[in-house]
């Protein structure tokens, strides 16, 4: 039984004689910088390195540079020499990276030709053009937990029609209870009343209830509803100019059809501060929790100033 063992080859002793599967095992334990160096040594090594995924805690991509953070401590920053290198390198990282967080910061006139599928849990866009957003979303693999689109810094071409299509998508795909989509509008965006009008038009045949602050629609699944919630309450007294100036926050959430109105979560600050942590904070843990209480009852927009809110208010059901 043991005799044929002696016919096995005598091993040599350098990297080039190591079997491919062992090389891959070694590469798996390498940090990103070493992988980059190894892939520059020869074509064969490059193809091996490129076949290996690597977990990246956070990646930030710009047209001029990128920054990667790995757990527990490794981080990497690199500038691109030109746009060709930016495209090639970014696509390489997107190909091998399995991201927890990934941020895209592409501004006007910058275009990234995404060729690789993107694996990430949480994606953020910062002032990216609509094209970038759509390109990335089309490349996303399954497993995404959150997508944040920040259009605050000047880019302003997101169409509400497209965003409302999320509701259609959830209806078509029968999304799970708890699935959330949140958005905010600034003074540059369409006014909240216009948003409500578009939403109602889209779902005329699906409306279950409309309280002004919340619109509830049915889905194709009799057990699931979708709730559109407005965050902040203002009383504009038909003052169009003031409505235009104010920030507003909206949330779409898939809920159980059994959910009663008394069970709605009124603590809107919890989700507003996720979108705009600079101007709003989550005071939910504070036993006084006055911000949220008062926020729901603002009489006029003068009461929102530097995030401080006036408590003397009444409920407003108008959008």
């Amino acid at each position: 039984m043991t005799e044929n063992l002696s016919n096995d080859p005598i091993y040599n002793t350098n990297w080039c004689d190591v079997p491919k599967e062992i090389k891959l095992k070694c590469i798996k334990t390498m940090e990103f910088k070493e992988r980059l160096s190894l892939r520059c040594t020869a074509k064969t090594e490059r193809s091996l390195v490129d076949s290996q995924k690597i977990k990246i805690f956070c990646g930030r991509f710009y047209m001029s540079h990128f920054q990667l953070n790995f757990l527990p401590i490794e981080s990497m920053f690199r500038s691109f020499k030109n746009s060709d290198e930016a495209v090639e390198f970014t696509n390489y990282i997107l190909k091998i990276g399995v991201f927890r967080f990934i941020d895209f910061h592409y501004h006007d006139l910058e275009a990234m030709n995404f060729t690789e599928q993107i694996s990430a849990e949480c994606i953020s866009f910062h002032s990216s053009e609509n094209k970038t957003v759509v390109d990335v979303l089309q490349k996303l693999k399954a497993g995404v937990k959150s997508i944040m689109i920040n259009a605050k810094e000047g880019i302003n071409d997101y169409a509400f029609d497209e965003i409302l299509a999320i509701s259609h998508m959830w209806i078509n795909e029968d999304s799970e209870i708890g699935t959330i989509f949140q958005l905010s509008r600034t003074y540059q965006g369409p006014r909240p009343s216009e948003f409500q009008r578009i939403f109602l038009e889209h779902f005329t045949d699906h409306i279950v209830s409309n309280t002004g602050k919340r619109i509830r629609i049915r889905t194709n699944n009799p057990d699931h509803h979708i709730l559109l919630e407005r965050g902040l309450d203002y009383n504009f007294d038909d003052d169009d100019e003031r409505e235009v100036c104010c920030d507003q926050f909206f949330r779409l959430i898939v809920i159980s059809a059994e959910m009663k109105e008394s069970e709605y979560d009124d603590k809107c600050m919890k989700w507003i501060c996720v979108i705009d942590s600079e101007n709003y904070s989550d005071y939910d843990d504070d036993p006084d929790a006055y911000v949220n209480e008062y926020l729901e009852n603002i009489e006029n927009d003068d009461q929102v100033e530097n995030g401080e809110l006036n408590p003397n208010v009444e409920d407003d059901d108008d959008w």
Partner: protein
Amino acid sequence: MSSTEQGTSSAAPAEPTTAPESAAAPEVPESFYYVHGKDKVVHKVSAGALQHSALIHGMISNLGYTEEQAKANPFPFENIDGDILQMVVDWCNQHKGKPTPPEDTNLPKQKEKLFDLVLAVNYLEIKELLTYCCKQVAMMVKGKSPEEIREIWMIPTDAEDEAAEKEAKKRAGKEAAGETAAAAGDAK
């Protein structure tokens, strides 16, 4: 077979320890097997230590050798250098029946020894030790540039690869032509 038998290290005593009197069931005596490498030096290793090697464990599990039979039939690993097999045996003895630590500082730092160890461990299918070895291999190039890695690991450049490939093709062509000419000569 003329060979030098080497006993197990102190980490794995050859003689089974006696069970305390209070123990209900008597301990089963530990069985031992024998392995040798290219240098023919035979190593006596306990079955418990050999469990780390999926290859050897698979080989011995159904043999049912007596001590004498095992001694008379050492497993020959002639593709493994003696000193490398010694390292493997030592590691198996040290980690017999113990949870494997996250890092192993006793692995060789020398490139040649490490690659030999990697290949031997891969052949013997010792999963944990292979993981350690691969980490050690990766550490060899930590912080190194592509040029430095190429030098440390003797990786040929693409140009060198292509030249070697051309040379090999040329040689193969010549050999094929020689064989054809010889066959034609035989036919005449």
